[in-house]
């Protein structure tokens, strides 16, 4: 979107740009969406921590001019849980890829959701492992080609939204880098939500997913994303078609006791005073 009138540079660590990502990668658009949300919400950068895992998306914390924690593969949510519990009035945003959050980090994802701890998770879903060069992941669509599924992926695909909801996330949304206006809106909603909030963002990987599956360049992949998500109701997990349609939007937005609040209540109950700095 035009950045007219909004100085998002304030929320960018411009001295480390350009980003590490390949030409045409949509991750930069998500960073832009995040900086835009920060900008609109006028957050204090010293009171925000962006926590990333390992993988392309995990590099996000380097690019936003807030506190940044680049952790280990799959564990970002566990780090973030400790951090948030230690200082509950910090705003903690977790950026994780589909591999980071749902393959190696799947367990922390479901448990953070179960606890309903006040974290905002931006789940960058490009359907492939980018940083290591294009291997199959848990969200790689059935039948897709990757460097470890050259004859087509035979594994079934996770639906992030389904998993997040079953595990107990209280805000769940999905959007795409095609729908770029939506990204900051969803992030703002998620950050404003007191509880575990997941925004899945489909993002294009032209270098690996696109080229291995002959989807054209980054521009072509945006159109593909649009078609992929074009108003069709969300499918259950069992889809075994290549590139099945996925609905975008907000799937859940419920208020349920948040975990740091529950912990605070517990402490009060036994005479403790939690949450001061």
């Amino acid at each position, binding site marked *: 979107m035009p950045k007219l009138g909004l100085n998002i540079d304030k929320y960018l660590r411009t001295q480390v740009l*350009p980003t*590490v*990502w*390949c030409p045409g990668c949509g991750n930069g658009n998500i960073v832009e969406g995040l900086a835009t949300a920060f900008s609109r919400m006028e957050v204090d950068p010293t009171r925000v921590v962006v926590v990333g895992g390992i993988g392309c998306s995990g590099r996000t914390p380097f690019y936003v001019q807030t506190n940044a924690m680049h952790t280990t593969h799959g564990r970002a949510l566990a780090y973030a849980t400790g951090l948030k519990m230690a200082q509950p009035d910090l705003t903690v945003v977790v950026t994780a890829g589909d591999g980071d959050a749902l393959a190696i980090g799947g367990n922390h994802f479901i448990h953070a959701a179960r606890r309903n701890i006040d974290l905002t998770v931006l789940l960058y879903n490009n359907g492939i492992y980018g940083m*290591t*060069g294009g291997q199959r992941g848990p969200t790689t669509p059935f039948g897709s080609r990757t460097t470890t599924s050259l004859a087509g992926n035979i594994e079934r695909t996770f639906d992030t939204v389904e998993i997040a909801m079953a595990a107990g996330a209280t805000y769940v949304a999905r959007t795409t880098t095609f729908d770029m206006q939506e990204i900051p809106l969803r992030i703002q909603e998620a950050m404003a939500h007191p509880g575990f909030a997941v925004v899945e963002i489909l993002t294009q990987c032209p*270098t690996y997913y696109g080229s291995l599956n002959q989807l054209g360049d980054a521009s072509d992949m945006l159109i593909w994303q649009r078609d992929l998500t074009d108003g069709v109701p969300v499918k259950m997990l069992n889809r075994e078609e290549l590139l099945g349609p996925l609905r975008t939007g907000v799937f859940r937005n419920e208020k349920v006791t948040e975990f740091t609040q529950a912990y605070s209540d517990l402490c009060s109950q036994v005479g403790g005073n939690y949450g001061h700095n």
Partner: protein
Amino acid sequence: MATIERDQVRIRLAGRGSQGIMLGGTILAEAAVIDGLMVAEIQEFGPEARLGAAKADLIISKGQIAFPVVHQADFLLCLSRPAYVRYSTTLSMNGLMIAEETLREEMGDSFRVTYIPFRAAALELGKELYSNIIGLGALAALSNAVTKESLQNAVRARVETETLTENLAALDIGYELGYKQVPQQIGSRWANAAR
């Protein structure tokens, strides 16, 4: 510390990811193998491999290659501006940079650099993608690291049939472009480096 004549050439190929540097490295290594030489080749890998300047390093040698990594290159082929900026410091004291002609204006002349119009030649052939093969041809002419025949055979083994004719032509063009520079650039320094 003593130095030992190793009869080996250390080569670095660098350019944008889209310029076929990796394939270039493989073809050059293959040519050395066809020539019966020892070779160790290593290409950029891992995180951030795709950003900035792509590179492929080779050591081509008559004898066993002990230390297999290029820290300082005898020949540095630079097809792009970022590659030039990033790697020019890795040229050895006696090394020769072979760079894209269009960089001459910004970078200036030096006895350590020879500029060759790879881009223009490639576009003339139809695609900028041929820059890598043209570069290989020039490098081979200037370094004498591998024979032209082996390089041709390596191209035959490694490029797709549809573009073979153009690639072999690119090799010829590069060879000619490189050969033209030999009188100026090649003194005693590399004439017998590898062969």
